[in-house]
């Protein structure tokens, strides 16, 4: 898994590539939480390069989502591949995050 970080205005964009599976979920969550704690704007997670997401990956996003919700900040997802979008729809996670 590869994560690139980019500042766009007041938001931070995280470009993620690879598999959001059990081994990668913890480092992904750590990267997200680092951005949550180090910045005070919104976060956009670009999932264009993600072709696999498991329950561990979803859970990592939920942890970050809860922290952002608590801080009244916005966590959005963008550029989901169709099969990834289906997982987000079925799991109900697409109702929790703004998806662009």
């Amino acid at each position, binding site marked *: 898994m590869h994560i690139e970080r980019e500042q766009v205005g007041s938001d931070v964009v995280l470009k993620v590539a690879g598999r959001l599976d059990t081994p990668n979920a913890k480092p992904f969550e750590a990267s997200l939480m680092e951005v949550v704690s180090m910045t005070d704007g919104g976060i956009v997670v670009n999932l264009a390069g993600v072709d696999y997401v498991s*329950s561990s990956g979803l*859970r990592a996003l939920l942890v970050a989502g*809860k922290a952002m919700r608590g801080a009244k900040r916005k966590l959005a997802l963008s550029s989901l591949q169709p099969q990834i979008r289906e*997982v987000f729809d*079925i*799991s*109900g996670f697409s109702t929790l995050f703004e998806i662009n």
Partner: protein
Amino acid sequence: MLVIAELLAGLGLLFVGLKAMATHLQKATGRKVRALLRRATRSPVMGLLCGTLAGAATQSSNAVAVISGNLVRGGAFTTRDAIPVVAGGNVGTAALVFVAAIDFRLLVLYIVGLVGIAFHFKLDRRRGMAQWMGVAFGLALALLGLDFIKQAPRALDVASVAGSLADHLTPLLGFFLGLAVSAVSQSSSTPTILVLALMQAGILGLHDAVFIVLGANLGSGFAAILSAGGLEGTGRQLCYVHVLVKAVGCLIVGAFFGFGEVVGFDGFAALSAVGNDTASMSLSVLFLALQVAGAIPVAFARGLSEKFAAAMSPPTLEDGASRPRFIHDDALADPSTALDLAVSETLRLIKLLPTLLPDLDQKDNGDAGERLALWRGAASVGLAVDQFISELIAVGLARDSLEVALHHQALVENVRTLQDTLHDFTEVVEGFDEVPPLAFALSESLRAITLSLADATDGPADDLDLIIALSGDRSEMLNRIRRQLAATALDAGADARQLLLATSLFERAIWLVRRSAIALRMPENEDNPVRPAAAEAEIKRVEADAHRT
């Protein structure tokens, strides 16, 4: 021919009578025996005494072992607590051998007469009477059978049969004969009673009978292992305790006769003297001595006994999963604490929910056998919590506690249904040779949601709100998926049908997760202090029931 017919009839009546007696005794005394055994955990002596009473009441050491095993699995007992009970159960079964040793012909006639008259006047329809009448009738049949066996050889030259038997029946042959008969009859008391009848008929002497009874004693231990069948873990451990009691009893009593011979002490003469020179009484004493000699060391060295049993049958995953961690019977004495314990147990069950689902992220999806054991264990604890709360409500609670208890009982019922739904869903997913993308999405989504619910049990109320939002209605999307599947099902066959089933189970599971989150959220919901009308009605109904009783 008459001799064989009478012997067969006697055997038949004995077996049917003993079986009927044990069955009716267990039905008549089962609850009381269970209550008695619950008190047996205080000390080895108490365990031994309670086990002896239970063995006498049920006339089956296997029944005592099975009840104890269930109490161990239910968490009321540890295996260590159950060891003296199982040991005592063997001692209790000696009561029937003593009954069989006395002259009972008159007693049998009275019992048959009284039971028959009682049946004629339909006394068996009175509460509790049918089982006791069954016990009495079973006892009469068994004793009648013994009488047939005793009377059968009267047409023979008893002295010549006895002489011929004494010539051919070596101690070793007698031992193996006893072992085989007890293994077949699954009982040590049945062959002992049979030997007793042959002794009373003058066919067998005390010397031969001792070796047959020793074999029968050991054989019934092995019979318990055979009858345990597929039982594993702690359930099987108590069968090994049973074998240990029998083996230690045989070793000590065998050593008594063996060493006696070496040092010039006649153990047989001593046994005969203890039995007041009555062969049948001597045999009854021997049977009791075998049980006591096995039971006492096994009960008092229960640490060693436990190690032996655990080495022979290590605890299984299901054993661990079936054991409640918080609730226990003694807690019912303090209802408010008991309610807290029930809540803690339910939260633990919620935390275990994700383990019931396959982890498709792993190459082998995890171990299916392990998941099945965890589901069985969790379902068993779920049932125990449900019953615990029902008993708590029956004990009588203050109005506020009653409201919490009823609310919590609804949550437990919901969690139990969710456990079963997740298990059914898992079976469907495991049924695919290669998991299709839709099944993967459903399974991993469900896993993520149950993991989040498990996390939320420790978190702030906001986390539950998140679960409630996450588990909202998605029937429109699932119906669309089902329509697509239905269109392809005609061509795609079993996989499409399995996927249809998976979507239904998924939808049900999500709905149950939502209900669970709402139930967990409600007691803390200060925005909604108004009690729902249905809950109010339920509280009034339970309070009215409590007043009536």
